[in-house]
């Protein structure tokens, strides 16, 4: 028992210690990333907005993440609802193939997309990155939305129809409100994934880098490393915040539907 506990503690340290170092060095007033710490400063944070290329990459990343979140959630809603409501031929293999990018190595997705896009003669840019990101985010959205649609009592929609609503107004008045926590959760998760994603963005981004790609490019300049640390701190904090929000939404959805919580991402 005791060795198991030690293992668990070591595991958690291994997992989170590097991330914990990020804010420590972000507030350290030395350009060299090494202990001992020399002093406290917020200088690296104030330097951030003074780098135009950085601001551009943040804008680019936000634009890509927002569009990716909306598109992959929309696609996820369609797929999850179809899977929950209808039975059709080859349903299981079709759903399986949609979910595959979840476990496919991103480098494979990135390289094959790059090859095809170049073959088609398309120029690289924000939209090609969005395409790649939608591909990997949609399975996450389906996984989140699927449980919401599966948990939806089919009698709910029938009751609305029975009370005189059309299928469309039923979807608007009953289905959407009941799955809305899952929809928000899917939006937040796909937004986070897209914002942090590096490999696909690196291959498909063209001349306008996304934030992770820009960060990577700055690692060549040692003087920039504390600034990168500061930015990383902001990103980590933002990601954690969004994930907590997404998880809260998921639990709220379960409570609304009067269901027991049976696991989830957090």
């Amino acid at each position, binding site marked *: 028992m005791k060795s198991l506990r030690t293992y668990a503690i070591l595991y958690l340290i291994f997992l989170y210690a590097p991330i914990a170092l990020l804010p420590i060095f972000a507030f350290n007033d030395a350009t060299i990333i090494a202990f001992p710490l020399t002093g406290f400063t917020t200088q690296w944070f104030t330097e951030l907005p003074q780098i135009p290329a950085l601001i551009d990459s943040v804008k680019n990343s936000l634009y890509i993440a927002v569009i990716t979140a909306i598109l992959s959630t929309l696609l996820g809603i369609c797929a999850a609802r179809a899977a929950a409501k209808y039975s059709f031929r080859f349903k299981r293999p079709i759903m399986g193939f949609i979910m595959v990018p979840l476990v496919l190595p991103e480098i494979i997705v990135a390289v094959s997309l790059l090859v095809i896009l170049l073959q088609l003669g398309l120029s690289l840019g924000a939209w090609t990155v969005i395409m790649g990101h939608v591909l990997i985010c949609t399975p996450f959205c389906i996984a989140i939305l699927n449980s919401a649609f599966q948990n939806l009592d089919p*009698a709910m929609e*029938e009751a*609305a*129809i*029975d*009370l*005189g609503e059309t299928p469309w107004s039923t979807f608007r008045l*009953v289905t959407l409100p*009941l799955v809305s926590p899952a929809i928000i959760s899917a939006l937040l998760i796909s937004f986070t994934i897209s914002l942090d994603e590096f490999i696909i963005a690196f291959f498909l981004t063209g001349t306008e880098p996304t934030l992770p790609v820009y960060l990577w490019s700055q690692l060549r300049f040692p003087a920039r490393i504390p600034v990168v640390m500061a930015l990383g701190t902001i990103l980590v904090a933002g990601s954690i915040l969004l994930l907590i929000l997404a998880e809260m939404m998921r639990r709220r959805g379960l409570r*609304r539907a009067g269901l027991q919580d049976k696991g989830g991402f957090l």
Partner: protein
Amino acid sequence: MTALIDLKNVNKYYGDYHALRGINLEIAQGEFFSLLGPSGCGKTTLLRTIAGFEAPSDGTLHIAGADMNGVPANARPTNMVFQSYAIFPHLSVAENVGFGLRKAQMSKQEKMKSVEEALDMVGLKGFRGRAAHALSGGQRQRVALARALILKPKVLLLDEPLSALDKKLREQMQSELRRLQRQVGITFILVTHDQEEALIMSDRVAVMFEGEIAQLADPQTLYKRPVTRKVGDFIGVMNFLPATVKDAAAIDLDVAGLGAVTIAEDQAPSGITPGAAEVGIRPEMMSILFEGEPDRGQITQATIKDRAYYGDMTYYDVDIEDAPKPITISMKNMIGRPVLEVGDTARVSWDARSLVLFSA
């Protein structure tokens, strides 16, 4: 009189599965009608066909004289109380009850008044502001009722509405539903697998097995004169004894354990032929004869094989000579009536009018 609901030769197939087999059914205005049967007998499919959630594979359905072929559920004069109640959890009680009024040509005040009246009718006065997910099972059911009745449908369809409630509450809701039905005068069609519930509440009951209506009758006829052994077995408790038809015209029988007996025409199915058959008798239609009690015409000797004491009743399993298995007799426990012990001998009294003959 034309029937409010008229089904003619309705069939429903799910692939190879024949869920409804040639259903012919007429239900009158103002009737409390039950569809009774074990799970998988097609009773819910039939209800959903009337509601418009399932389309019959062939046959016709008319409601109030109008052909329902191609009429979607949202355009039918029917409303439904679902087994899960399907209360919208994101809406308040008042919003749930008033859901069907969204498109009604009424002012806000009129709608609110309607909601108040509907809630009052189901005994939920003052619940309008409550959140739907904070209701108990019984309250949910009342909200579902109010929500379905607010549109004043011609037919209210109830899909096993009481099955999720505990026994006490269920019994209370049974009488309340009955009272409500008399009050509003709307035709109620209830789906249930609980035979007691069907007998208590209904004007008429259709017993269904394997997609077919086995018997359609009022509760008393159903209980006293089941047309098949299966119906008799499904509703209440019934003893079955092998019998031989001696004379088909006079209906002279030789019943194992009970001996020679003649029954009336209404106790036998039509078209009986001499030979092997079966006789059924209810436990309360036989009694153990105690000192000073009048007999019911026929007397048979028996030995107590087993006994179950229920407080107000005692159920005896008695061995009767020539009967292939023990017969169950129920006796009310009354002043001066002892509870017999296993092994005691007793005289069993019965009436030839209580027998029902089934073709083998």
